[in-house]
């Protein structure tokens, strides 16, 4: 329990740090940040609405610590201001719709890629020097050197525009009614194939390589030597003794790489006009929609923190030694 509380405390601090960054960054900008931030709203909304919007970001005439408190107070009530690009929707509404798609797409692709990559890494290390180790691993490493979004462009070009196997953009067709129906689910799945596949292809190699390397190190340990000496069946040695132990550092690494991988998948969304947070992010950038941009930064950061906490819990479940200190 102690361990869980300590990790939770850490993520609270990290969350507070990102809230504070969100407050500080606009104030670092040269000139008058508030007017830069809200310039595009001028003439579009009522002066009172403008004052309210400024208050959300703490841009009042009060001293900075009062501004900071005002900002925190608005945040606590979930108030992220108005989106310029989606005016008159509020930022929280806009992000809410995008988050579902991102969590669905990136969540699935990243977990699938990690699981498959780890399995390939286990097999590559077990049959060291085999075709998986000497052909597939370098090939995937080469693919991993391409930017995610570039692979997405290529996939879209080949399988979308070229062969016409998959839809070109969006998360579902406009002539399909959203709802809990099989038709809708199939349509969503068809739209997700290319973006998900490009994320998987871009990340698979790195998971495979890191699992392979920890596996190789594990295979040289006395734990493995004892397992072989005991005459255990090879498959059991590979999975229950080697892979199970090699998995632990990789799960930790998975947690740390999450933010990075998520960043890549946000860019992938843009290529497919997939209506997730990544697509919103570029809309915010192109429209200079600062409230939306900052709201997205916050929400994405909090989501990554939550995912990291989940990974910590997973480690706890996987490793009795961590549990002992918990």
């Amino acid at each position, binding site marked *: 329990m102690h361990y869980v509380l300590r990790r939770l405390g850490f993520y609270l*601090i990290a969350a507070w740090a*990102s809230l504070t*960054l*969100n407050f500080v*960054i*606009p104030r*670092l900008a040269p000139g008058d*940040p508030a007017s*830069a931030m809200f310039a595009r709203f001028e003439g579009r909304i009522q002066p009172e609405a403008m004052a309210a919007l400024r208050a959300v970001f703490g841009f009042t005439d009060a001293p900075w610590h009062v501004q900071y408190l005002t900002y925190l107070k608005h945040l606590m009530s979930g108030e992220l201001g108005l989106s310029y690009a989606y005016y008159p929707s509020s930022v929280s509404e806009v992000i809410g719709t995008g988050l579902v798609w991102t969590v669905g797409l990136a969540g699935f692709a990243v977990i699938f890629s990690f699981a498959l990559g780890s399995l390939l890494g286990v097999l590559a290390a077990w049959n060291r020097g085999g075709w998986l180790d000497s052909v597939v691993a370098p090939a995937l*490493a*080469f*693919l*991993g*050197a*391409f*930017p995610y979004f*570039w692979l997405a*462009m*290529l996939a*879209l*070009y080949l399988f979308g*525009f*070229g062969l016409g196997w998959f839809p070109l953009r969006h998360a579902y067709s406009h002539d399909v009614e959203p709802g809990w129906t099989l038709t809708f689910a199939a349509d969503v799945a068809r739209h997700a194939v290319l973006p998900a596949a490009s994320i998987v292809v871009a990340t698979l190699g790195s998971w495979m390589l890191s699992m392979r390397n920890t596996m190789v*190190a594990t295979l*040289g340990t*006395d*734990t493995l*030597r*004892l397992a*072989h*000496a*005991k*005459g*255990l*069946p*090879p498959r*059991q040695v590979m999975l229950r003794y080697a892979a*199970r132990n090699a998995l632990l550092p990789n799960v930790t690494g998975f947690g*740390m790489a999450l*933010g*990075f991988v*998520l960043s*890549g998948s*946000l*860019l992938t969304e*843009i290529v497919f006009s997939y209506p997730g947070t990544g697509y919103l992010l*570029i809309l915010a*950038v192109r429209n200079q929609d*600062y409230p939306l*941009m900052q709201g*997205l*930064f916050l929400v*994405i*950061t909090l989501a990554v*923190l939550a995912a*990291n906490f989940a990974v910590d819990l997973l480690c706890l479940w996987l*490793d*009795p*030694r961590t549990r*002992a200190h918990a």
Partner: protein
Amino acid sequence: MRDSIRRLFRHRKAAVGGSILLFFLVLALIGPWLVMDPSDLVGRPHQPPSGAHLFGTNGQGQDVLAQTVVGARETLAVGFAVGALVTLVGALIGVTAGYLGRRVDDALSLTTNVFLVIPGLPLAIVLGAYLPSGPLRMVAVLTVAGWAWNARVFRAEALSLRNRDFVAAAAVAGESRARIVARELLPNMASLLGSSFIGNTLYAVGAQVGLEFLGLGDVGSVTWGTNLYWAGNDAALLTRSWWIFVPTGVCIALVGFSLTLLSSAIDELTNPALKAPPAVAAITPVTSAAQAEPQPPGVVLSVRELCIDYATERGPSRVVDTVSFDIAPGEVFGLAGESGSGKSTIGYGLLRLLPPAARISQGRILFDGTDVTALDEEALRAFRWAKVSMVFQSAMSALNPVLTLGEQFHDTLAAHGRTTRAASYARARELLAMVGLSPELVRAWPHQLSGGMRQRVGIALALALEPKLVVMDEPTTALDVVVQKELLQRVLELKARLGFAVLFITHDLPLLLALSDRVGVLQGGKLVEVDTAARLRTDARHPYTRLLLSSFPHLNADDATGPTSNVSLAAPERPPALAALSGGHR
């Protein structure tokens, strides 16, 4: 240092990665003078590759080849600048935290970890949106978003170096902290600095291209990222103009791949375990008359002219050289020799547990009439543990840390015949009690046990299938004297009760003489003398045996009367005379 750089060049991955990178560096330097101005509108937009425009034209009607070549310059310049800056910032913060420790470390580590979990791209976007445009903005944004990982790596390295002797010596000599960091710590991190710089450059190129693709770079400049930004904006996909985005993407991937190759080459050079072991040469075994003889009665194990070779970079090296000995049922046979004499290799060889680089090149191992060297995979698996089991020197780390003891007993029992989990656990309780542990430990994990307890578990595990021979490889070396004594007493009691034979391997000759019926002395892979313990004590013939005996200070006849004699069990420090002996080291 110069040597490690030379090795780097000889490394295949490093050579390929280095050449690709060099090509792009030269391209970035002189390429822009060789091609036309990338911003010139040279023809119709979206023209496919032709003689006039090798890579075609883009959506604006500009030459794609020129755009790609010129784009290399700023992309690589920013990439390397950010790579260096991130390395520098990370190293400074990490080393400061790791070396100063305490409060400074707490504060810096917390900051580092917070920045590590905050996703980089959204942070970079928000930062980038507020800063004035230009290449400096890119450098600043990427450094802020990317320094944390490096700081973490360098902190860990500084922590491990801080406790090393040479740093302590410098501190004792009164050198200032700043001087220790600059003169002692940083030079020892040269390879880490190198691989971090490469890794950070890789990050910088990728992140820069991503941000520029989003339109957060200077869209007026020509870089690989802005090329892709314009490709997206000018509907390269819609117009089926693959030539607009493919060359740039391939260049980015090649640069990225070359950096990956370089960093993986550095990893392999600093961590040899990752490198594939040298191939073992095929040998045609010669069966001599002595090897072909059937096993004599009254002997459980016969080792006949056993040779074990290790493959090395310079060809095979013989570690065990024509070793022959027999072990009778219930006998304790001791194998003595200093480190590198091949004694553990013989132990592993009996179970054919040699590492991939080693192989039995000659000789036979006969156990109860079966030739162990001729067993196939499945027969070997059945043979292991059921006939010959083993207690490792490192039983502490040999148990699987993620399984309870009961599970590890169950796996062992189940691998050699069908058994239920309940039956296995009952047997495990019995075995644990037999070695003097609480049966309730079946539910415990290895980390909950002390070193001595784990070694007992190792013995209990070795007896699980009632083998006829137990190989004990320095089973007590890592334990303190009292625990060592108790444990050996227990082994001898169990041996008397269960009747298994023991092959006891250690460098501690006095201990062996006290414990064994017969002892073999190994020097440089050769068995130089085999005799009964009683005779060896007083009447050793080989000079090496005599040297070994004389180098243990307190040995006299009185100490060697019983198996648990205090003096003989207290392994003294190995004197330098032993290590200096020729032929002992390999």
